């Protein structure tokens, strides 16, 4: 019963301390407001950065799942004996279960010339007819690359809108001649570059041509990069394993002859990058929070000095050092928490706005809210500790001598 009574005594004391703290905060309205503002800005910065980044990363993930599912990328550097893949290997890969099709990716860096216009370092990609089955809407006019083109290493190409504008302004490019690295090509169509996020990673081509032609331009006969399409997004692991077995056989079981990248693993890398970025920016933003904490400390120290007589008096009438300390801690904690909660609200509002402007989905990150609230609570206690301790250590007679 006695223990209960003393516990309740502490509770009453605590409630009363909260009331006094609020009173003191209200007493110095401007000063409290400025201090709170410091914390608020810090928390706002942390919350809005983290929430915006997580919004961006969510929309990237969803674009991955929508377009990237069901494909995997094979990079085959090959063994000393066989430095890549040929048509026979393609046939064997296509024979695997769940494999729907494949497109070789052969990059050629070109200098494009037509008449007097010339552009250097333009990426052309050698591919096959299957590309157009996957990217159904990419052909804008003209015709697709077909299997006859690939068999004959035909010097035909499709160009994207950028090149149409630079080389064939106002003229229909179909059937026109274009020189790629001084070789004469016929433009057979216009395509739209893949603008999805996944293609940004691999770099989007401005020119498409039969892969056999591209290989020839590179003086190569073997393909090092393939995209393999599956009939189901869930078959990725299975195909990866089968493909591995097949490639081991093709490359005589040598090590490091190929890499298989699934969209899952790209997404994972992307997510890691995003969380690193959010940690970095969050870290920078939290400097603002530390500055806010220093503001609190400054205000509390001033407050302790101003209230020396009050503290002395309270000690004289029986306040324990711990009770004085708690009272000041509550005050700095409240200041910081008010700033923190305002900052969370403002930060969420700001990031909702930013997500809206960037066209990404806005998702409230509870982690960020928790972080903001927790951070400001910690700042209040850490930076309030030393002034509160100073107050509790004041000697009552020194304090009362000033009266």
């Amino acid at each position, binding site marked *: 019963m006695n223990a209960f009574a*003393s516990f309740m*005594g502490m509770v009453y*004391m605590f409630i*009363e301390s909260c009331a006094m703290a609020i009173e003191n905060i209200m007493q110095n309205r401007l000063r409290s407001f400025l201090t709170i503002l410091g914390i608020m800005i810090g928390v706002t910065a942390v919350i809005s950065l983290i929430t915006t980044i997580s919004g961006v990363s969510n929309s990237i993930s969803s674009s991955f799942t929508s377009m990237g599912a069901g494909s995997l990328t094979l990079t085959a550097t090959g063994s000393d004996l066989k430095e890549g893949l040929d048509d026979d290997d393609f046939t064997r890969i296509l024979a695997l279960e769940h494999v729907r099709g494949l497109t070789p990716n052969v990059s050629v860096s070109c200098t494009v010339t037509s008449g007097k216009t010339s552009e250097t370092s333009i990426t052309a990609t050698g591919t096959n007819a299957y590309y157009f089955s996957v990217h159904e809407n990419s052909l804008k006019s003209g015709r697709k690359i077909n299997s006859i083109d690939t068999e004959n290493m035909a010097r035909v190409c499709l160009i994207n809108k950028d090149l149409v504008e630079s080389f064939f302004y106002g003229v229909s490019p179909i059937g026109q001649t274009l020189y790629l690295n001084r070789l004469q090509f016929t433009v057979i169509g216009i395509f739209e570059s893949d603008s999805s996020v996944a293609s940004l990673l691999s770099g989007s081509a401005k020119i498409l041509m039969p892969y056999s032609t591209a290989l020839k331009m590179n003086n190569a006969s073997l393909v090092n990069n393939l995209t393999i399409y599956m009939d189901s997004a869930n078959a990725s692991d299975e195909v990866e394993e089968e493909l591995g077995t097949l490639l081991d056989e093709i490359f005589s079981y040598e090590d490091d002859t190929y890499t298989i990248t699934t969209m899952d693993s790209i997404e994972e890398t992307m997510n890691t990058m995003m969380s690193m970025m959010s940690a970095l920016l969050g870290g920078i933003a939290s400097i603002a929070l530390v500055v806010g904490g220093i503001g609190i400390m400054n205000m509390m120290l001033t407050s302790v000095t101003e209230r020396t007589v009050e503290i002395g008096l309270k000690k004289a*009438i*029986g306040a*324990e050092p711990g009770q004085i300390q708690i009272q000041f801690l509550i005050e700095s904690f409240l200041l910081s928490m008010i700033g923190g909660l305002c900052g969370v609200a403002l930060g969420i509002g700001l990031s909702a706005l930013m997500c809206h402007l960037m066209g990404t989905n806005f998702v409230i990150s509870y982690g960020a809210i928790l972080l903001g609230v927790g951070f400001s609570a910690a700042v209040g206690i850490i930076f309030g500790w030393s002034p509160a301790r100073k107050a509790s250590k004041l000697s009552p007679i020194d304090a009362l001598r000033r*009266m």
Partner: protein
Amino acid sequence: MQKMETEQGGCFFRMRNIVKRYPLGDEYVTILKGISLDIDEGEFLSVLGPSGSGKSTLMNIIGCLDLPTEGEYILRNNVVLDLSEKALSHIRSREIGFIFQNSQLLQRMDAMKNVELPLIYAGVRPKERHRRAEEMLCKVGLEDRMHHMPNQLSGGQQQRVAIARALVTHPSLLLADEPTGALDQTTGRQIMDLFHELNGEGHTIIMITHDVNIARNARRVVNIIDGVMTEAEGEVTFA
């Protein structure tokens, strides 16, 4: 530490050879030069002395606000020199009621809240706090001024609030430092009447003053001059 003698009925505190030194620059000044004083329960004592005599230092030591440099001070079985700061604040909270020279009320709180303050630190529940504060304010004759702010009260009324605050924890000892110092004579007279009344109810009172006429109110007067205490016999005089 010397073992305490068996407590005689009503011995409140016992001081033996209390010395207090303060550092002043490189040297020490001795404020109290060996003071011995016994106080029984229910006494009304005046400590009379000019300013600078060390009487405020003595009051701080009696009130456990300060510790003596040397000597023995036993308050209700507690060897004060051995106590922690927390234990000292407990004694201040439960045994001693302070009345300061210029009342020292918290200006931001009304009379009621000022009187409640010691009870907050003693952990008394709100309802009980209100009841006791109200009771004390009535006792000092301020039943119609309970929710006035200190600056709306006269000096005498403020001092009454301070007395109510000192009494509210039911302390064993009322310790008053120049309680009438800032008051006119009539008001001072009224405060002294209140002290007599409280003493009549059994409160132990120690009053510190430089005013012979005020000191005469007490049943026992000690002189303190230059840190040395002498018991005043018969007619109280003060040079």
